[in-house]
């Protein structure tokens, strides 16, 4: 007895499956830090998501109110440990602005070079994370291998590997060393070749591409309204980079390009970051030429007063992950009255629900890797 097709159709529509909440984190290999993403699954499809952060919250801003100005520089290093120099740099810029202090040109160039090295090492860490999230350990280890050379450059520059404690209010701690001067160009040349190897591993493989293309799509308006910044935003067609459009330090004197792609999926975010790696290499080379032209005996640090006059100051800079901003309220004493950090990942994480809903659970790690999690700055 053949049943009507419509009857079967009606029956299967009633056959609803239970949705289930899967809590990914805080100990989960995809999290690359310490956060939780609760996802509601219908089979493998994500129908709802809720990010939970705060596992690394230690009241950074409140603690800064308990430190003198000079002591906050190493604290700022530990905000975003993958690109430690950017935050201490931003902090010094903010205090200098509140002081009205001019920084020697050489120090500005050195800061730019250090920032870009940070950007490269941070992006390499991100590429490594993308490799593990896609299930390939080779990318992870090759990126970590390349990252070691940049860590070596930091050692040459200031003696530390990760948390460098290098910028100072009014300049930088020390002039570039001879070893750094010698190795930086070699490192850049080696890296531009080695990066092609890693990129070839990913771009020549249709599996990598099919995992990244067409996932985590946002429109430009959505992206901007959600407050996503940085390479994730430029992969969505927003042509904005603080280094170029609101220049700080000497970025307006250095020629570089800002990669922008319009697809708005994981692959375009990936491409933007990879292109940024090459651009950072260019910036380093050009800035190093300027530093050599300035000469060895030029000043690299001006003395700064310990007390900051009452008032407010705001500074922002292009972090490897997006727009970071510091806002200082000073009351004339030796300690900040209020220091606020705007971290790009804080806002980017809050946008994770529209990013992952509608994709499959296997794509969630890849999509979230594309905004490059760094929870130290998120939770502060």
């Amino acid at each position: 007895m053949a049943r009507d097709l419509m009857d079967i159709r009606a029956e299967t529509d009633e056959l609803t499956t239970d949705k289930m909440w899967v809590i990914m984190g805080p100990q989960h290999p995809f999290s690359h830090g310490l956060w939780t993403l609760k996802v509601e699954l219908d089979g493998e499809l994500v129908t709802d998501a809720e990010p939970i952060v705060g596992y690394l919250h230690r009241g950074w801003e409140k603690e800064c109110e308990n430190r003198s100005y000079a002591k906050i520089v190493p604290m700022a290093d530990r905000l975003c440990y993958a690109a430690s120099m950017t935050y201490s740099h931003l902090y010094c810029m903010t205090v200098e602005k509140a002081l009205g202090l001019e920084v020697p040109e050489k120090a500005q160039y050195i800061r730019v070079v250090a920032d870009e090295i940070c950007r490269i090492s941070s992006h390499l860490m991100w590429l490594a994370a993308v490799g593990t999230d896609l299930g390939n350990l080779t990318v992870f280890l090759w990126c970590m291998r390349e990252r070691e050379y940049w860590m070596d450059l930091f050692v040459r520059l200031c003696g530390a590997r990760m948390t460098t404690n290098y910028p100072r209010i009014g300049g930088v701690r020390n002039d570039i060393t001879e070893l750094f001067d010698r190795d930086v160009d070699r490192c850049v040349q080696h890296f531009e070749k080695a990066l092609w190897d890693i990129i070839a591993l990913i771009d020549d493989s249709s599996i990598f591409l099919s995992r990244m293309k067409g996932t985590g799509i946002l429109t430009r308006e959505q992206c901007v309204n959600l407050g996503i910044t940085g390479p994730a935003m430029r992969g969505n067609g927003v042509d904005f980079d603080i280094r170029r459009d609101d220049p700080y330090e000497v970025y307006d004197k250095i020629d570089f390009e800002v990669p922008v792609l319009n697809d708005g999926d994981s692959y375009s975010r990936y491409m933007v970051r990879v292109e940024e790696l090459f651009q950072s290499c260019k910036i380093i080379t050009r800035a190093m030429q300027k530093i050599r032209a300035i000469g060895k005996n030029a000043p690299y640090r001006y003395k700064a007063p310990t007390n900051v006059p009452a008032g407010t100051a705001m500074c922002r800079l292009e972090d490897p992950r997006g727009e970071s901003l510091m806002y200082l309220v000073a009351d004339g004493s030796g300690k900040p009255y209020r220091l606020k950090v705007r971290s790009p990942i804080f806002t980017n994480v809050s946008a994770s629900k529209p990013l992952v809903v509608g994709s499959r659970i296997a794509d969630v790690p890849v999509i979230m890797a594309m905004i490059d999690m760094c929870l130290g700055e998120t939770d502060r």
Partner: protein
Amino acid sequence: MDMSLYPHAVAMSADEFMTWSSAMINDLLSAGTKKTVDKLTGPVWSWAMKNSMHPLHWGLACCALEMAAASAPRFDAERYGMIYRSSPRQTDILLVNGWISKKIRPEIRRLYEQIPNPKWVVAMGECAISGGPWYDSYNTVQGLDQIVPVDVYIPGCPARPDAMIDGFMLLQKKIDDYFRRGVFLED
């Protein structure tokens, strides 16, 4: 040893038999068998455990990057058989490499309970040792040892990858001591 019951063993109920036999085995073991077994097998367990340390794949903060760098080609912790497993059930070592906020404190305790015995805890970096730069924070726990017993402390802010490998070699010594003391038949 209560051997007088031996002839009646066939006539015992199941419960009686279980209690009687386990008591007998315990007596046997305490009479030197346990020590001998431990003495003979201890080095084997110790060697196996030392060379197959599986830390929990869990990155908290700054030191997590150095943990990743330690397994990278330059430092290559896999030479010592260290592989990171994601499920706490399949790991031996809880490696905590970051500051501990009040929100994560219960989770750390839970992860520790989920790791099967024998297990070890490594506190990596200043934050996990004593709170580090966040000594006056209202939301951090000042040191991992306030939550779980810690075996090895690896200082550094962040600890370098080679320091981390050195810490794990210290842990190997501790593992060796643990097994030579004789623990196999304890559970």
